[in-house]
């Protein structure tokens, strides 16, 4: 199984007639992500663009109406990417206590099996970094985090799990994150935390935003 090839080529592809996806060349790192944030600010002002949605070193643009000539968007994205500087968003820091393993981390042993690391080594590597919120997605308030140790890389599951509880801390490919509510997931769940990430009654409904930071702390480890 090959993983994220570290350095990716630039790719632009259509998602039917409703959106276009720009995938940045290069590494999954904060430098590239800051340029994606910058590209998002620029592209959301373009005519016919409904929303600019950053992902992990990529950007999806949804259309108000499908463009007649999507190739012109292709060219505009390449040009804007070349011009995009690093937008350094200054965010807040949140600490999340995590219960690792046991019923809270049903796939922890799959991570052990795949990486060859021990449970303790996995947890030590997982709590070490200061993670940056790169983007929100998946479900209301969910944060994609950058900064995971590549040694923890585990492919997404062969078949998605139909429902995992909110607060599940999981690994998918080279990424880690915390689910904000119960639902299906293709990621490997290693622990659980309690945190409210979303309030639909607020004008800015998500509690965290790109540029915010998360640190995980070991609350307990279950067998």
């Amino acid at each position, binding site marked *: *199984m*090959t*993983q*994220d090839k570290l350095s*990716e080529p630039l*790719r632009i*592809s*259509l*998602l*039917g*007639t*409703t*959106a276009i*996806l720009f*995938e940045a060349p290069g590494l*999954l790192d904060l430098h590239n992500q800051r340029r994606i944030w910058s590209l*998002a600010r620029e592209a959301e002002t373009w005519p016919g663009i*409904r*929303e*600019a*949605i*950053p*992902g*992990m*070193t*990529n*950007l*999806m643009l*949804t259309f108000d109406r*499908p463009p*007649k000539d999507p190739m012109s968007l292709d060219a505009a994205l390449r040009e804007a990417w070349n011009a995009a500087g690093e937008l350094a968003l200054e965010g807040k820091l949140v600490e999340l206590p995590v219960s690792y393993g046991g019923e809270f981390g049903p796939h922890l042993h799959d991570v052990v099996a795949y990486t060859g690391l021990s449970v303790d080594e996995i947890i030590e590597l997982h709590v070490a970094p200061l993670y940056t919120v790169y*983007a*929100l*997605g*998946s*479900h*209301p*308030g*969910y944060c*994609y985090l950058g900064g995971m140790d590549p040694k923890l890389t585990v*492919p*997404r*599951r*062969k*078949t*998605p799990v*139909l429902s995992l509880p909110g607060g599940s801390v999981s690994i*998918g*490919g*080279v*990424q880690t994150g915390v689910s904000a*509510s*119960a*639902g*299906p997931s*293709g990621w490997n769940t290693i622990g659980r935390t309690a945190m409210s990430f*979303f309030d*639909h009654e607020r004008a800015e*409904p*998500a509690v965290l935003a790109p540029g915010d930071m998360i640190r995980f702390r070991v609350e307990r480890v279950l067998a």
Partner: protein
Amino acid sequence: MIEILSSAALSTVQDQGRDGYLRYGVGTSGAMDRIALTVANLLLGNSSDAAAIEIPIFPFRVRFLEDTAFALTGADCLATLDERSILPWWTVQAKKGQVLRLGSPAVGARCYLALAGGVDTPMVLGSRSTQLRGEFGGFQGRNLRKGDVIGAIGPHAAQAKLSDAGMPEFGVEPPNFFLTSPSPVPPGDAEATVVRVLPAGEYDCYEAASLEAFWREDWKVTPDSDRYGYRLAGPTLNSRSAIEKRSHGIVPGVIQVPHRGQPIIQLRDAQPSGGYPKIGTVIEADLWRIGQTRIGSRLRFVKTSYEDALSALAENERYLDKVANLVALYRSSLLTT
């Protein structure tokens, strides 16, 4: 107001969807068959953003707690109002106390029950659609249950006049009488739902035999299929090398292929991002066909071009324009006689 009389598992309040919050992780939700919802609103003179009840499980029964004009579109579910049969794609004035019963449709999967003015649930983040994952929008952010009482915003002035005129009943032809169904290559079973697909980002990463099978074979809609996505069973799709993508935005219609090689069509409740490889996208113009495809039945994919996908959208709009014109003509004739 209406009261839900059956255990209405999986019925939800939906409008055209919630736009503009993908970057907060909020998917669009919205009707699985947007054409049926649009026509239901046209029949009642509702605004285009009005919400209705999407019903995927039958039988389904509601009692009218007051006189209310309603419309039924989508699957033909042999509806009765008390003892009287109600045609599909039709609008009727119900009297207080009457019971509407929807039976199992012979064809199609989802029925839309629209009420005069639209279902009266709060707008949350710009939409009345139910966000099941976020537990907000729609009716208390959840599926409807037996005993729920749901209000209607109430008729606009023109609709109220029509009701007073005592002749509010009429209907239109459903979209499958007007829209050409795409033809599969090679021709297949007439029972299968055929939808057009644009190749997506990782299309070229699949083995030639898998791509050939993708277009040629029937895909069975498995019981794990719902508003989140349709999980399909058929030939195994193998990529030339394993693909692990960085998470990125996706939209309803995207066909992802998890590693075991069985595709999933992401639909209206799908998450707005993902990382499984994308072999194609069912075009927006054909998503309503999937909304009317039942678990256990079969799907076929037809390769299309971006230009043809735009033409298909334009054809849908021509149908809706035709319905809007017919409804306007009929209403004005009723009001002037």
